[in-house]
Each structure stands twice: as C-alpha cells, then as structure tokens.
C-alpha cells in the first residue's frame, strides 16, 4: 500500500468527499471531515501511514464535523461519529484532532475483542516487547515517547493488543498523546521529536501529540512477543527504582487496566495468567527519563 503522503490540499479534498482511508495497524479507518484543523493534522501525523484501497473493507467509518445549529457561528465545536453514531458530546473545534485520536481508541476498545486489550504503552527493542500499563498521570506516555525517541520501536502508546492464542502483540502505532508538562519535556528531550500544536483547556489539560517514528509505522504489520511488564510511576525527585513484583500482583494489576478482560471471561483470565507467567513484572518509580530508560535497556538482552 502507498503511504498517505499527500499535500494538505489533497487530503482536505479527500476528507470533504469520499474520505481519507488509512491503514492504522490492523485496522482500516475511513475518516471524513470538513474541518481545516483535521486536514492539517492528518497531513502532519499520518503522512507515513499506508492508504487503504478504495474497494477494501473498512473497519471504522469515522466523521468529525461541526454539529448542526447556530452555535457553529458563535463558538465552533466538533462532534465525532462512528458509523453514524455520536457516542460523545461535542468538544471545542480546536480539539477536533485529539477527538479523532480519543474516538479511535474508543472504537478499538469497544469492538476489537479478538484481542485482549490492555490500557498500556508497548515498545520493543531487539524484537522484545515491553508492556507499560499505567493509570493516567503515571507517566506512561512520557516514558513511551522518551523510549521511542531513543530508538525503541513504538507498538502503541495507548493499548496493548494481545493475541489470546500466542500472546503476541499486534502493533497499532499512533501519535503519542502528551499532556501538560510532558509536552515541553519531550520537545527538549531528543533531536527530531515532532510535536503538533498544543490544545489548551481539554478535559486532560493541555494536550499535544508526538508524531510516531516512520520506522515504527513501516513495521506496523510485524507482531512482537512480550518479554517484560513494567508499571511506571512518575514521582517528582525520586531516585529510579525498578522492583520485581509477584506474578499474582502483576495479574490483578494488569487486569484492572484491561478494557475487555471481563468481556473475554475465561479466555481473558487465562491469557493474562500466561502473560504474567511468561513476562517478569516490575514497578518502576522514576523522575529522570534517562535513568529510567537505562534501567529498562538493561532488561533487554
């Protein structure tokens, strides 16, 4: 499949008409939008992604447009719809691209039950994947962005999609969502980091997305085997500590971070049991990214 790498005007035209069709990991996504901001950011973030053929099956038909009504002329908003259904309230129009990312997460988490899906970043090195589950604020995305900027492969910033049969992780590399202080930290952390425009006053504070490395996008059809589970916890001023945790504790904690474990039932439980039996689990407390990365690097053979 050819990459989407088109001029912004062409992308805007496609978005307004038949839609832009993008292959994002295992999912074919069709996006339609009349919003200039969406065209700008799709052109910026998704240039390296493969285009889906016109006649190919599409998993998610998404639209992001202004809701109808007079409000559009006073304080423009954007609304996300999936197969014609609008699951969320409208948000200010400047959040339209972030809404696409959040909405696509929702589409995947609520429908892709062929995978056990865990709220986690996943990165890999030398073919060994590390799962980083995390509560909001734990520093999962910042650590993921830092690892990726230091050469780790990005499989996902938001969800580990685990095959219940063989435990392999299907990549779905997407723009990495950064919040508040993390935006400036990542801008200054490494050369070549590309971050989109920040959007203020969202439900998560100020958010901006980091462009995923082209190489990770190019390898989005290659699964990786999980080797380690690391629960990150950012703690201001803390020395870096990486401590092994018991499998039983790891299982219950990763189950809490799963979107569809309860839906998969026995299969979900048995998958997580095999996952924690295979992969040593650790608590990582950190305040310095370099030091945290050095500890994670040391786990990889």
């Amino acid at each position: 499949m050819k990459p989407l790498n088109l001029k912004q005007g062409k992308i805007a035209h496609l978005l307004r008409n038949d839609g832009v069709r993008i292959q994002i990991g295992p999912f074919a996504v069709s996006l339609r939008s009349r919003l200039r901001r969406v065209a700008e950011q799709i052109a910026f973030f998704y240039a390296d992604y493969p285009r889906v053929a016109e006649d190919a099956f599409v998993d998610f038909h998404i639209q992001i447009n202004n809701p109808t009504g007079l409000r559009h002329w006073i304080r423009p908003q954007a609304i996300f719809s999936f197969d014609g259904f609008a699951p969320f309230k409208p948000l200010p129009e400047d959040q339209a691209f972030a809404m696409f990312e959040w909405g696509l997460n929702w589409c995947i988490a609520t429908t892709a039950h062929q995978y056990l899906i865990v709220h986690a970043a996943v990165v890999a090195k030398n073919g060994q994947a590390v799962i980083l589950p995390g509560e909001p604020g734990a520093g999962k995305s910042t650590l993921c962005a830092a690892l990726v900027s230091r050469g780790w492969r990005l499989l996902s910033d938001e969800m580990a999609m685990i095959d219940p049969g063989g435990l392999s992780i299907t990549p779905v590399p997407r723009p990495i969502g950064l919040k508040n202080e993390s935006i400036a930290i990542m801008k200054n952390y490494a050369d070549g980091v590309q971050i989109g425009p920040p959007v203020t006053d969202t439900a998560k504070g100020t958010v901006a997305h980091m462009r995923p490395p082209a190489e990770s996008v190019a390898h989005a059809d290659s699964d990786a085997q999980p080797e380690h589970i690391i629960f990150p916890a950012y703690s201001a001023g803390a020395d870096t500590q990486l401590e092994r945790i018991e499998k039983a504790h790891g299982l219950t904690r990763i189950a809490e971070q799963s979107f569809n474990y309860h839906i998969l039932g026995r299969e979900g439980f048995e998958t997580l049991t095999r996952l924690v039996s295979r992969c040593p689990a650790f608590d990582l407390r950190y305040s310095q990214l370099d030091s945290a990365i050095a500890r994670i690097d040391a786990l990889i053979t």
Partner: protein
Amino acid sequence: MTLEPDITGILWRANFPDFFLWAEWEDEEASVFFHQGSGETLLLNPLGAYLLKTICSEGISIEKLAHRTARYFDLPVDKALLGTINMSLRTFEQKGLVLSSVS
C-alpha cells in the same frame, strides 16, 4: 470452642463452582481467583484461597470449616480464626461467590 449464635447453623456453599478459575504459582503464596459468572477477580492469601476451594466442593458449616482450616495450617481453633473465617465468608458472600443457608 463455642461459636457465636449468629454463625452457627449456617451452611456455606459455592455459587456456581464450575465458574471458579485459579492462577497459582509454586514460588508464590498469593493466588488469583476469577469467577467466570461475575468477572470478579480477587487476589487471595493462602487462607482465602483454601476457604474458597474447601467450600467449593461441598456445603459446609463454619465450625467444620474452622476445624479443617486449623488442621491444614496447623493453627488452633480459636476466636481469632473463627472471626477471620466468618469475615472472609461474608466478603465472599457479598461478592456473590458463596451462598449461605440455614441448616
């Protein structure tokens, strides 16, 4: 050992024991329990796991359960043990994992 009147005469049995799943490792004390019916996942210490497994197999009184538990863990049957077992059973009951009935 005399039991409190409010916990005697009650039989405890598992709620759909065929739905019980366990994850256990030889080198770890704690185990993880999963109930397929409710989706409930519990991190259990050895006492909790022993109680659920013992109740699983048959309807049992707390007195009988206390004696079996005491033998298994080499403990005395005293008020502390009975209190702990009673509290565990009530917790399991609230989660819909065990059922109680008056014998």
